[in-house]
Every structure is written in C-alpha cells, then in structure tokens.
C-alpha cells in the first residue's frame, strides 16, 4: 500500500435532480492507492457519485477535491481521472489500437511513445495481436479489457469503474475480479469501483462504502462490514442473514439476558441496552449450529425446530429450519471430512444454537 494522504476528498456533497435528492450530504476521503468500492442497490446514488468524480455532473452543493485541487467546475477532459463504463462505450469506428491510443493522442504525445505505451498496455491486459480488430469483432470479455486498457493507459490519478463486470458471465467475472485487483496493486493507482454485487465488492476492495438512498450507511473493510453491520440495511444487503426479534430482560456480568423469539437466551453486544428495549438479533447462516436432540451440545441450544428443506451446494448445505413460533431460519453447514452428521432429512427435529458472541444486536427501530 502506498501513501495514506487522501487523493480524493468529498466534502458535504449533495446532488439534486429536479425535486429528487440523489445524494444527501456525502463526505468521504479516499486514500492514494486505495481500492474503494461504493456498494448499494440500484438507485442509491453510487453511479451519480462516480459521475461527480469523473466530472459529468456538478454537485448541487459541497466540494470535491482531487489531489488537493477543487474540482467542482473542472470539465471531464481536464481531470486526471479516467472511467471504465458499464457499457464499455468503445468507439465502434476505431480499431482496438486507436481506441487505446485515443487519450494519449489527445495529450499530443509523440507517435513512437504512443505506440510503445499502447503495445505495453495491450500486453498487460492480454490483448496482444488484437490491436487491428474493431470492437464488434471482440468477445464481451475482450471488449471489457479494451475499455480497461483505454482508461489505464493514460496513467490517471484515479480510475473510476462503473459496474464494469456486470455484463460478463460468472466465471469470467470472478477471473476479472482477480485480474483487476492484481492490476491495481501492480500499478498503485487508486481505484474507485461501483457495484451492487456484495461478493464482488468484498473480493476486491480495501474498503467498502455501503450506500442507501443517497447516504453512505457504513464504511469499512469488507470484514468489518460483514461481521459488524451497523444497521439492518447493511446487514441484509451484504449476504444472507437471519433477523430475530428480541427484548432485553436483564443484565448479567458478561452478557445481556433476553427473550429471543419467545425463548430465553443470552446476547453479547458491544453496546448496552436498557431492560425492556426491543432489539434485533442478526445471525449469519454460517454462524448457526444445528444439532440433533440427542447430541450433547443440544442442551445449550436456544431453539428447537424442524428441518424444512436442505439444498446441496457442493462444499456446503443450505438448510431451512422452522423454529417454534413459526419463524424460518437459514443455516449453512460446511462438509466435514470425518462426520456425516449434517445429513438431515426434512421433517427431522433439530436444536439451533450459534457461536457465542457472533451475533450482532441492533436496536429495533
């Protein structure tokens, strides 16, 4: 990782289209060399934020600084940032070489240098020998690489990527995620990535900013966001999660006593809640433990229930359990070489517990 000084500073930026507030008072610093992802559902404002950085839109209020300079009124062609578009937006009437050389030619670099840099770039994205083709003659994956090469060859301070992988199939997408991450480490360029795909965000980013209706609802490393979601939106947006209703009933030295879905249980929380407070208990499917009534660990289990459905996923099994009171929980069990005890049948009674302290407790609002 390179320096920690901010390359991008977004200060109190709001954006309004007609009567709709698309971005509401966003502030964020992005460090030089960082891989930051804006993650959120469609319509949350993440693409608008990226377009503000690129210069295609101007903020209604607030300021954007890139490399210490205020950028609000600087047009896109005067900014040292480049964009990879979701649709790639390759120039259809130009060859791959001309596409990649376009930015360098605008800078009036000598022809020999342009040739060298484009060739080097095409090699980096594994497109050697395709310089003479037109975009329409390339596959989706190859077009994606041209779009990437066309932006990166200009050596921008920041590379903006607007859901660039969404049109690729699953396998190619996973492969490109790895390549993008390696490319970013190798070049040391700051990447600002936009996606609605949580797995994609987590696979590549140093830091993720989760967005929802014009706000950044949480920012942090992928691990922080997955393990300690600060609100229900983040919790349910990033991955599968079980949400249980609970009421705090008392305080013990190392935990809170509570009634969870009608059953007495213990909760562990960093925050303190007064007695009588209604809370939500969040549990990831992989944190739930299932056991048969006759197993020794079943005694500590909070809930008893019935298996509704098992879905075999290869390395894991997704199990749906209906607990007493009728709530359905989603549990994920990993195959273990020396035990076959996750071979449940629908209708079988089970006990449900979770790893102590892995639950997240949030106020019910």
């Amino acid at each position, binding site marked *: 990782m390179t320096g920690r000084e901010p390359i991008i500073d977004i200060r109190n930026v709001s954006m309004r289209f007609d009567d709709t507030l698309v971005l509401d008072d966003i502030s964020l610093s992005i460090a030089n060399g960082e891989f930051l992802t804006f993650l959120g559902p469609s319509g949350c404002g993440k693409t608008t934020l990226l377009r503000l950085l690129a210069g295609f839109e101007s903020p209604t209020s607030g300021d954007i600084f890139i490399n210490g300079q205020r950028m609000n009124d600087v047009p896109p*062609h005067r900014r040292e940032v480049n*964009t990879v*578009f979701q649709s790639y937006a390759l120039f259809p009437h130009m060859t791959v070489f001309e596409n990649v050389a376009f*930015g360098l030619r605008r800078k009036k670099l000598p022809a020999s240098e342009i040739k060298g840099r484009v060739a080097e770039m095409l090699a980096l994205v594994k497109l050697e020998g395709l310089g003479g083709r037109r975009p329409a003659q390339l596959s989706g994956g190859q077009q994606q690489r041209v779009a990437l090469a066309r932006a990166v060859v200009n050596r921008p301070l920041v590379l903006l990527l607007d859901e660039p992988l969404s049109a690729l199939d699953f396998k190619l997408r996973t492969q490109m995620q790895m390549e993008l991450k390696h490319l970013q480490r190798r070049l040391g360029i700051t990447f600002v990535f936009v996606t609605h795909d949580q797995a994609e965000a987590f696979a590549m980013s140093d830091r993720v900013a989760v967005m929802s209706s014009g706000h950044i609802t949480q920012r942090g490393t992928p691990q922080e966001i997955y393990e300690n979601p600060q609100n229900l939106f983040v919790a349910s947006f990033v991955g599968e999660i079980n949400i249980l209703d609970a009421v705090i009933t008392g305080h013990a030295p190392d935990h809170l006593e509570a009634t969870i879905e009608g059953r007495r249980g213990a909760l562990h929380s960093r925050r303190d809640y007064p007695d009588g407070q209604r809370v939500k208990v969040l549990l990831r499917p992989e944190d739930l433990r299932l056991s048969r009534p006759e197993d020794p660990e079943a005694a500590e289990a909070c809930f008893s229930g019935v298996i509704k459905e098992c879905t075999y996923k290869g390395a894991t099994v997704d199990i749906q359990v209906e607990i007493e009171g009728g709530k359905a929980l989603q549990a994920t069990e990993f195959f273990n070489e020396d035990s076959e005890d996750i071979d449940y049948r629908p209708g079988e009674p089970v006990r449900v517990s979770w790893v102590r302290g892995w639950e997240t407790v949030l106020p019910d609002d």
Partner: protein
Amino acid sequence: MIRIVKAAYVSLVYAFLYVPILVLVVFAFNDSRVATNWQGFSLRWFAKLFGNETLLGAAVNSVLVGVLAATLATAIGTLAAVAIYRYRFLGRKVLSTAVYILTIQPDIVMGISLLVLFMAVRMPLGFTTLLLAHVTFCIPFVTITVLGRLKGFDTHIVEAAQDLGASEYEIFLRIILPMILPAVAAGWLLSFTLSLDDVMVSFFVTGPSFEILPLKIYAMVKLGVKPEVNALSAILLVLTFCIVFAAQLMMKERREK
C-alpha cells in the same frame, strides 16, 4: 389454395405499382410518334432528347440546384441534429418537433409561404429563391435521418471521449462525425432526389429566368406526352434507382459492422 391467393395478391400489388413505370420505359424505345401503339425498337427519342437544348439546359439546372441544395441542407441539417442530440438548450423540444412537422406539412403550403416571403423582401424569383426553397424543405429530412442514427448510439461514447481528454471540437470531428457519416451521406442523397423531382414548391418560387426539369416536363405534358419525355423519364428513373440503392447500401453496410 391460400398460397396461390397470397401470391396473386402480392403480384397484383407490385403490378399496380410497377406496370405504369414499365410501360413508360418500354415506350421510350418505341419507334412511333403516338405513344399508344408499338412500332418496333428505336433509340431515336433518346437522340432527339439530346438534341433538345432547352430540355437539356433545364436538366443541367436541376442537377446544379440538386447538388447545391443537398450539400447546404446536409451541412445545416446535420449540425441541427447534432445540436438537438448533444446539447440541452432553450427551445430544444420545440425545434425537434418543428423538424417533424415540416416533413408532413403539404408542399403547397410551403410553396405559397415561401413565395409570400420572397415577395415581402422583394427578392426576384429565380435561381437564388429556388435554391433557398429547396434547402429549406430538405433540411428536416437530413436532420431526421441523422438524428435517427445518433439516437442509436450508446450515450456513454461521447462521455468516454470527454473522459479521455477530447475537447468539444475533437468529439465532433473524431467521434460523432465518423459515426454518423453513413446517415449524412444518406441524407444528402435523399435531399438530392427530393430536390430533383420537386414540382410543387418549385412552381411557386422560380421565375422564367431559371427553368428546371420537372417544371419543363410538366409544361410539355400539357400539350400531350411526347416520346422524348418518356426517354427522359426512363433516364431519371435509372438515376433514382441508382441513388436509392446506393443510399440503402451505405446504411446497411454500416449497420452490419
């Protein structure tokens, strides 16, 4: 049975459309003064046509006006299309609607209104007024053709060019113009054919000093259809076919790329 009916129906439609044209072309080669009975193959009407200087002069005038009007209309119409597509300005919606209205309004309205305008500014009717009129009615067709192609493009392409450091001028020259070129060419050809066979508007806005082919033919036919007119029409027909075919080919080839 149904197949036969269908085939017969289609044949009838095509016959209705093309038999008159075919008859016209055939009689252009008829060795007879009266157009209605066949007396053997001859090229004499073509020979006579090329000896008719007033008719040839009118043809040259028509081509001259056609080329100039098409070129001017293409330049203006293309820029209008790019402006409507690319920029947000006051009256943009009005302008784009007005363009469509101009294509469907009756020619006679345009002819009379232009005549009134030229009278009002005391412009003598002749070459200049005719050219201005032709440019006027060709512009909307060019704009619509070019706009149609612009609307088919990914809007991010222009943004990508901006993002890579291109100025407005460079975006127009290196991105927009090459991409719309087939539509621009098609617009030119369309304008040329529109100008070449216009009677209605031209009738109002040209004077005796400047004769053009369609009006000349119109005047000649009043005294009965002469076989020379058949010959001339045959030539014009072949020319129109070539131009329309070229225009189609250009649009098609680019679309396939």
